[in-house]
């Protein structure tokens, strides 16, 4: 059975620095595959290669067995890859609703329509409202993005990513900067998404990782030093030495 996402020998160098050192990774449909590792391990670089913003120096990326290594960013998005950013990336000049309508619009045919106002496209707006309700922002539709709290912006970010009806989600530290309550809400949301999407989750929040992940890969200096289910990873001595270390004491306590 072909994996939803597979990377084969992915390599990326920046000058003398190896950011991705022969990474073989798979994400199955319906699973949450978390990628953890110390800062500078190359996690964001990995996601950038998967989404298409950076071209790898070697290796291949396969979506449902199809080689997408050379495909541009927008084409991968249309094939079903949705991505969220570590640093919130939305459209600050538009309202919350308009942000998500744009996301929906991207997958609703072409946009060479010059006369009909977007506000008249009821179907798009309805889908946007649904996505926003799912992300908990139903009350803030008309609010300009500038007025949102940080956590609400992250929710908007997630709503936009989900509104594109992806099959594979690449989530780059979605809990970054969130309060405890906001993180818990996001974990609940992601738990409901499990099974419907394949999710590659890059995160530092170990609670969330161990709650959600079906599999965990540990990335250190661009290499996957271990990959397995959460229990196996927690027990792995190399992983504890390289990363979990002191955290293990906190988790066990």
């Amino acid at each position: 059975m072909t994996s939803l996402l597979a990377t084969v020998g992915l390599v990326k160098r920046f000058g003398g620095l190896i950011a991705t050192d022969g990474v073989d990774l798979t994400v199955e449909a319906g699973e949450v595959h978390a990628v953890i590792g110390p800062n500078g391990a190359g996690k964001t670089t990995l996601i950038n290669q998967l989404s298409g913003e950076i071209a790898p120096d070697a290796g291949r990326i396969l979506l449902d067995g199809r080689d997408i290594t050379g495909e541009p960013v927008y084409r991968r998005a249309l094939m079903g890859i949705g991505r969220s950013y570590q640093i919130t990336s939305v459209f600050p000049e538009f309202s919350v609703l308009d942000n998500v309508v744009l996301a929906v619009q991207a997958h609703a045919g072409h946009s060479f329509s010059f006369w009909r106002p977007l506000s008249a496209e009821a179907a798009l707006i309805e889908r946007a409202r649904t996505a926003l309700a799912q992300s908990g922002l139903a009350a803030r539709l008309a609010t300009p993005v500038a007025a949102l709290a940080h956590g609400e912006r992250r929710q908007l970010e997630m709503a936009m990513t989900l509104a594109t009806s992806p099959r594979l989600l690449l989530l780059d530290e979605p809990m970054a900067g969130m309060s405890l309550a906001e993180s818990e809400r996001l974990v609940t949301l992601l738990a409901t998404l499990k099974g419907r999407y394949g999710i590659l989750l890059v995160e530092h929040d170990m609670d969330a990782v161990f709650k959600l992940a079906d599999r965990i890969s540990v990335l250190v200096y661009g290499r996957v030093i271990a990959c397995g289910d959460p229990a196996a990873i927690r027990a792995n001595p190399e992983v504890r030495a390289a990363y979990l270390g002191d955290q293990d004491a906190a988790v066990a306590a």
Partner: protein
Amino acid sequence: MSPAVRRRVDARVVVAVLLLGGLALVPMISSLIGGPFYITLFTRIVIFALAAVGLNLILGYGALVSFGHAMYIGIGAYAVGILSHHGVGSGWIQLAAALAVGAVVAVVIGLVCLRTSGMAFIMITLAFAQMFYFLAISLKQYGGDDGLTIAARSDFGVFTLASNTVLYYTALGVLVACLIAFHRLVYSRFGMVLRGCRSNERRMAALGFPTLRYKLTAYVISALVCVIAGMLLANLTKFSAPSYMAWQASGDLIVMIVLGGMGTIVGPVAGAVALLILEEILSGWTTHWMIVLGPAIVLIVLTAKRGIYGYLVERTARHAEAGASPS
């Protein structure tokens, strides 16, 4: 819509109507005062307003700062000039030729320029405009440096542009049509994509938009508006000259947009009116008026951002607020 926003929207309509209404009355006022001077001046203003509105589509709404759009004015002007030189006086043929050439050039140049962004984009558009400027100068058989005189204004069959009044109202009509079309466009799917690209292009691509084709389309549309402005300019002066494509002309368009207020459709019209009238007045005082205009532009950039149109809208909105019933 909150009351404050509604007042601003209404104020915008009021200012726009006043502005365009005022422009519509110019020929009548001009014939009362006597002499064709004012109608010529205002035809010029309307033509450059049209070009500025065209450029504003990609500059104000798409954040694509083209420092070379005057070359499309030149293409329009030379289409009329060259065809007229060879005996083709039909406005329809001239229009078709101008739009065809303009579209091809815009697609080619647009594709090259849109491979870059930011400052590089600005520099490259400037370079290509310069190329067309030199090209026009090198065309000795079409006047070269001195330019090309046009024997007669364009003939559109049912009407010709020979009369100053007809030319004026044609230009004004095209301007109003363009304003209406663009007003719809910026809120359409296409307009939202363009504005999204200005806001966060990286995210647009990640959402699944092939951004290049939309930016290129917007570039071509704005170029064609300038081509039409160029045709009208050639008709006004009965002259096609390389100077229409000089880099200063492109700079002037940008000044009009910023002066009038970016981010609005009608803003550039106010900017064109202000800049060209200011030039008329200043050049009456001294031939060295540029030395005032230069630093004035620098000051405007450093201080005011909303522009004249934005200021007028603000004033009108506050007027309405003062006149409204106490809340």
